[in-house]
C-alpha cells in the first residue's frame, strides 16, 4: 500500500513537472508596447491596430504586408506568411503572433478582433450634420 502511494505521488510529480516545463516552453506573452516587442528576441503576441492610411499589400512571395501601431503610436511593419484574414479591414484591433527580426515583425498567425457578435454599434463621433 505504501509503495502504491509512492508510485502515485511520483507519477503526479512527473506529470506536473512535464506540464509546467511545456507551459514555459510554449508560453507566449502578450505585449502591447512595440518598443518592447522590437527588443525581445522570442515569440510574442503583439497587440495593436492596423495603420489604415499605410494600406496593405501582398508581396512577390505571397506574404501579406501591413503596418501596425500600438496605443502610443509606435509603428511596426508586419509580414505574414499567408493571405489577408477574414474581417481584416474592419478589425478594431489585431493580435499578431511571431518575432521581430531584420526590421520587421514576422507573423506566424494573425487574429482580428471585430465589433461583431457581442457588441453594439460603436458610438460614432458626434460630428453633427
Amino acid at each position, binding site marked *: *500500500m505504501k509503495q*502504491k502511494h509512492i508510485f502515485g505521488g511520483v507519477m503526479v510529480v512527473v*506529470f506536473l513537472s*512535464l*506540464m509546467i516545463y*511545456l*507551459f514555459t*516552453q*510554449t*508560453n*507566449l*506573452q*502578450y505585449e502591447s508596447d512595440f518598443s518592447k516587442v522590437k527588443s525581445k528576441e522570442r*515569440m510574442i*503576441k503583439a*497587440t495593436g491596430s492596423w495603420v489604415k492610411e499605410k*494600406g496593405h*499589400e501582398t508581396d512577390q512571395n*505571397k506574404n501579406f504586408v501591413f503596418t501596425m501601431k500600438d496605443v502610443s503610436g509606435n509603428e511596426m511593419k508586419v509580414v505574414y506568411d*499567408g*493571405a*489577408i484574414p*477574414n*474581417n*481584416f*479591414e*474592419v478589425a478594431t*484591433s489585431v*493580435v499578431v503572433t511571431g518575432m521581430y527580426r531584420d526590421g520587421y515583425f514576422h507573423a506566424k498567425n494573425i*487574429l482580428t*478582433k*471585430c*465589433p*461583431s*457578435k*457581442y*457588441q*453594439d*454599434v460603436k*458610438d*460614432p*463621433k*458626434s*460630428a*453633427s*450634420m
Partner: protein
Amino acid sequence: MAGSILVTLAFVLSLFSLIMYYLSFRGAKNTLNYARLAYHGMAMLIIVACAYFLFLILTNQFQYKYIYNYSNDQLPLGFLISTFWAGQEGSFMFWILCTVIVGIFLQSYTAKRGELEPKVMTVFVLTVTFLIAMITPPLKNPFAYLWAEAAFIDLKHINPAHLNLPFIQNFMFTNDSGETNFVKINHEIYTLLANSGISINEFVIHGKGLNPLLQNFWMQLHPPLLFVSWALAAVPFAFAIAALLKNDYSDWVRQSFPWTLTATGLQTLGIMTGGYWAYGVLGWGGYWAWDPVENSSLVPWLIGVAAIHTMLVQRHSQEKGGTGRFAKTNLILCILVFITVLYSTFLTRSGVLGDASVHSFVSPGALVYITLLVFIISFLSLGIGMIAYRWKSLNQFVVKDENLLSRELALFTSAVVVGASALIVLVGTSAPIFGQSVEIKFYDEMHIPIAIIVGILNGLSLLLKWNETKGSEILSKSRNSLIATGIFAVILIVFGKVYDIMMILLATSAAFSLFVNVEIGYRVVRGNKIKIGSYIAHIGIALFILGVVGSAGYSATKEIDLVKGEKQEAFGYSMVFTGFEPIQGGAKYAFNIDVEYGNKKYNVRPVMYISEFNNSLMREPDILQGWFKDFYVAPLGYEDGRAGEENHSHGQEVTLEVGKQVEALGAKITYVEFIRPDMEVMMAGGEFSMGAKLKIEFGGKSYDIDAITKRDGEGLLSVPVELKEANLKIELANIDMTSKNAVLILNNITGAEDVHATRSAEVLSITAAIKPFVNLVWLGIIVITLGFFLSAYRRLRESWN
C-alpha cells in the same frame, strides 16, 4: 414589456419554489405541493416567455434591442430561429429554457424514488433561480428596448418615409469618414415619435442581421445540443449536493448515473458539431484548433468522462453493501462538471478572453461580469463547503485496497488520466486571464502520451476482472487481439509508411483497444445485450483516435495559384479553375474548379463573398469527401486581372506641399496650385472635384497637367492622368483640404503595362489540403455518442429502488 414581466414573475416563482422545496427538505409537511406548483408555474412562464420571444423574432420586432442587433427581415425561417441563440441574452434564455424543461423531468424522476425530490430539487431550483436572475431586466434581459440605452442606428435601417419629420435632424450623426449616417435612438426620440403617432417598430424597419458565419445548418444544431447538455450537467451536481445534505452516499450514484451519461453523450455531439462547423464552414482546415471557446466546452466533458469511470467503481463496490469506493472523488467530480460549465460561460461571456480567441467577445458590462463571478463562486463554495463539512463522515467509509491488476484500479487510472487532460486544457485556456498564453504545441504534446495511455487502458481494463486478475489469464484472453494489433502495426509501418515513433504507439494502442473491445464486447454482449453501451463507446474512442492520427498527424497542405484554364496538380489531384458564378441570387460567388483524381472527374466549388453584415470578405471551403480521405479546398483570394491597374503599391509614392518640387522617374514635378472644390456643392453633398495643378519638366520640355480626385455618389474616385511624352502616369492618392498636401503615385506607362500584362489572367488562390481518415473522426464521435445513450438506457433501468 410583457416579456420582462414574464421573466420577472418566473424569477419570483422560482425563488418561492426554492424556499418551499428547502422547507420540505427540512421536514415541513404541507410545502411540497406548493414547491411543485411554483416550479411548474415558473416553467410555464419561461416557456411562454420563450415562445413570445420567438414570435417577436419571427415578426421582426426591431424595437427590441436584441432583435435589432441579431436579426433582420431578410432571413429565412431557419436562420430566424437560430437568431434566438445568436447573442448573449438569447442564448442565456435558451439555456434556461433547456434547464427548466430538464427540471420537469427531474421532478417526476425524483418524485418516484423515495425521499429524493425535496433535496435534489432544492439544489436544482437554486441553479435555475441563479440562471433566471441573469436575464431579469437589470442584467442580460432579451426583452430590453432599443431606446433603453442610447443606440446609433444606421440610416439604411430606418424607414425613409419618416425621415422628413422636423425633429429627426437633431438626432442625425455621422461617423469619422462622413460616409455612414446614424440616427440616435433614445428616450427623447421615442417620445417625439410617439407624439407623432409612430412606434419604434415602424421607424426602424430593418435589423443588423445575423453574422454570416452563423448562417448555416451546423450553427442551428450546435448551440441547442450544447445547451441541453449543459442543462443536464446541473443534475449530477444537484444529486451530489443532495447526498451531502443528507449525509447519505449509498444511492445517489445509481440515481444520477443515467443523467450523467446522457449529459456527456449530448455534449459529445454538441462539441463535435461545433468542430464540424469549423472544418466545413469556417475553413479552418481542421475540426479542432484548441481555441479557448472550444477548450472551455471540452473541460466539462472530460471531467464528466472521468466521473463516469469512478462512479462505475463506486456502483460496483456498493454491491457488497456500504458507500463504496471513491465516494469523495465522485462527489468532487460531479460538482466540478457543473462548475466548469459555469466557468466556461464566464470565460466566453465576460470578455476576459478578448485577445485570445478568434471569437469576438466584448465585455458585457461590469454588472454582468460580477454576477457571473458571484454565480461561480457561490456554487463552488457550496460544493467545497459541503464536502469539507462532511469530510469526517466521508472518511469513515474506508474500503479494503484493491489488487494492482484489478478493473477498479484500471478504471480509476483512466479517470486520473482523463482528469489530467482536463487540467491541461484548463490551465492553457485560463492562461490569458493572467496575460499569458500557450502555443497549440502545448496541448498537442501533452495529449499524445495521454492518448496512448488511454488506448492501452481502454483495452486493458476489459481484460481485468473486478478485484483481482492473474497475469496469465490476461495473456490468454487477449491473444487474438494482440496478434491483430501486431499485424496492424506491421501494415502501418510497411504500407502506411508511418515512421514517427509516437504516432506508431498512438495508432497501435488505439488499434489494440479497438480489437479488445470488439472481441470481448462480442463475447459479453452475446450473453447479455444490455451491457453493449460501454463497448460501443470505447470502440468509438478507438476509431476517433485513429481518425485523429490520420487527419491531424498526416494531413498535408499546399497553397496554390490557379490561373484560369491552366491545369495544376496537388497530392495527385489535378485542378482546373474554370471561372466563377453568382449563387443565392448574387449574394455569394461560387468558384468552379474541375478536379480529376485517378480516372474520375469531380467538381469543387469553394465560395467567397463580401458580407454586408461586417463588410468583409468571407470564404467558405469545399470538400471532396472520400471514404479514406478528404480533399479540402479553401479559397484565399481572387484576382480578376484588372487588379494590376489599380494596384498602387507598384508605383512610387511622393508627398508634395504646394510650390515644392520633386524628381521622380526622370521627371521634375512641381506642385503649382491647389484646385479648390466648389464648397457649396460639397456642403450640399453633390458631385465635385479637387486636386493639384502640376508642372512636369521632362526632356527639356514642360507640361501642365491636373491630378484630380472626384466625388460622386459612390465616394471618392481618383482619376489617373497619363503623360505619354514623359512615359508617366500620375494618380492623386490623397489630398488634404487644410494643409493642401498632395500624395501622388507615379508610374511609368510602359512599366505599368508590363505589370498589367502579367496580371491579365484571372487567378484563384487556394489552400488545398489532404485529410486522411477524417471520416473516422466523425464515425468515432457518432459511435461514442451511441454508446453513451445505450449505457444511459441500461443505467436508467437500474436506477429504480
